[in-house]
């Protein structure tokens, strides 16, 4: 059994006395497609923030490939192979599409020469060509030079994923990548992410769209009020009584599970 790529071990996080994450532990296997789900406010984005270094855990450890990373500065985590997207899109509004994507290359382009070589206006470089290539591959046929602030929501969402991908991460954290997308777009997204996964990138996805979760991810972790209440295959997550209770409340959960028992 190979070691997990990412491990959270008894991670807890408080904000001013309020416990947001409580003793959460789970593993993300190498090459997995894992979902992190739960009702709103369960702490999913906080987990992402802990993994990417925006916050430090108060208790517990975060291990990447066996190595404890929770004390490593957030700036250095991309270099370790962790890339992410954000729940409410956080692209640089005044930069163009291709420039936003090129920012994703930052961790790979850290040398002094890289920093001082022109990448726009005076000359195009390999970095720009790589960014434009990936944009084309993703089917983003807007002008690369278009300033991002003016583009529609769906396109900006995709650009953010491209920005995360161009960092050539080992693990990709996606925070609600399908939010605001219609059915066709969601299917496209799923196909694309399957391809990404096939290329060896591990996926950890926060999502509310259960059909996407079921078709894309084989494993799921469910959080509720900062605690883990389920850690297992996606196929059986909706039958778990604790999960039902979390989403529907005790009375309805009982109804649904008795329904499920009758139907099964």
């Amino acid at each position, binding site marked *: 059994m190979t070691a997990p790529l990412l491990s959270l071990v008894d991670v807890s996080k408080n904000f001013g006395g309020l416990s947001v994450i409580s003793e959460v532990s789970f593993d993300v296997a190498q090459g997995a497609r894992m979902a992190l789900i739960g009702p709103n406010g369960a702490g999913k984005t906080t987990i992402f923030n802990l993994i990417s270094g925006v916050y430090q855990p108060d208790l517990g450890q975060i291990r990447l490939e066996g190595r404890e990373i929770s004390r490593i500065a957030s*700036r250095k*985590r991309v*270099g370790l192979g962790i890339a992410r997207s954000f729940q409410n899109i956080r692209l640089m509004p*005044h930069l163009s599409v291709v420039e936003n994507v090129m920012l994703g290359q930052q961790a790979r382009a850290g040398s002094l020469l890289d920093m001082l070589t022109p990448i726009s206006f005076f000359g195009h470089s390999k970095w720009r060509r790589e960014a434009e290539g990936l944009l084309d591959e993703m089917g983003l046929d807007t002008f690369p030079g278009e300033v991002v602030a003016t583009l529609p929501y769906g396109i900006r969402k995709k650009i953010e994923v491209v920005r995360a991908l161009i960092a050539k991460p080992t693990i990709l954290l996606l925070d609600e990548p399908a939010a605001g997308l219609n059915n066709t777009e969601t299917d496209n997204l799923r196909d694309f992410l399957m391809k990404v996964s096939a290329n060896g990138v591990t996926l950890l996805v926060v999502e509310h769209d259960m059909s996407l979760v079921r078709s894309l991810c084989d494993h799921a972790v469910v959080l509720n009020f900062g605690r883990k209440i389920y850690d297992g295959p996606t196929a059986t997550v909706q039958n778990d009584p604790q999960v039902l209770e979390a989403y529907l409340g005790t009375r309805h959960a009982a109804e649904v599970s008795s329904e499920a028992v009758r139907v099964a």
Partner: protein
Amino acid sequence: MSGYWTGILTVLAINIIFAYAIFLPVATGQLNLGGAGFQALGAYAAAFLSANYGLPAAVTLGAGALLAGAVGFLIAFPILRTRGVYLVLATFAFAEVISGLILNSETFGGPMGMAVPVFLDYQVPVALALVVTVFAFYLMSTRFGLMMRATHDDEVVADLLGVSVRGVQVAAFAIGGAFAGLAGGLYAHCFSFVEVQSFNALVSIYVLLYVLLGGTQTPWGPLVGAIFFTLLPEVLREVLPTVKLSLAWLLGLKGQVAAPGESWRFIILGVLTITMMVLRPEGLITRTMLERVRPGRHASARERSP
């Protein structure tokens, strides 16, 4: 070329260099309201070395820029730990402390100022302004420039993407300081005299405003801002006398109407500032505007190949 025009070119060149000095930190997200302080450092360093050691202008200018840049670098670390309002105030306080120190020093002539023996004609500031402008365009076109703009737009995400936010901020602040010092040194040599009163709060406010109004998203902004506001007093000189008389009559103002011509420049700047902040706070020249002006230049790869 007549003395009148060489004078204007000199002032314009110095203002352009000064504009880029403030542009760099602002483009990175730090409002620097202490530009006059760095200018004073460069001006007095150049004046001092020239008057007391007879060093050639090339050396004094370099020394002035270096000193201002070094001070900018040193002070950047503590100052940039402050944010927002505090940062603006700290840069402002810094400039006032510098001018206060100079005012009180005998070595630098105190309130009397210093004469500068070596004179530089307009070609030098113009050439240097060209160099600085090209450098600014170059810097903004590099990945470092990208890092600067990312830091301006969203520090948190820039950091998460691997940008050393503090490093970028300090570098922009220090290089800006050096440019301001260069502008000061040129001022010393082109006007043959420095006095600390000319490096005052109004100068800092003035340059910050015309950089903001020109637009801080691209390196075209400070150029446009500097040109417009340097030429403004000249235009006013033509138009002013009639306007002044009619306005005074309109407002029924009595008392001394022997007003300094300067005031109009500031009133117009002030009105434009207020208007721009309401209508177009990004400044005149924006990224979107530039992209529209350059169609097809950045066509996507797919559209380029048949």
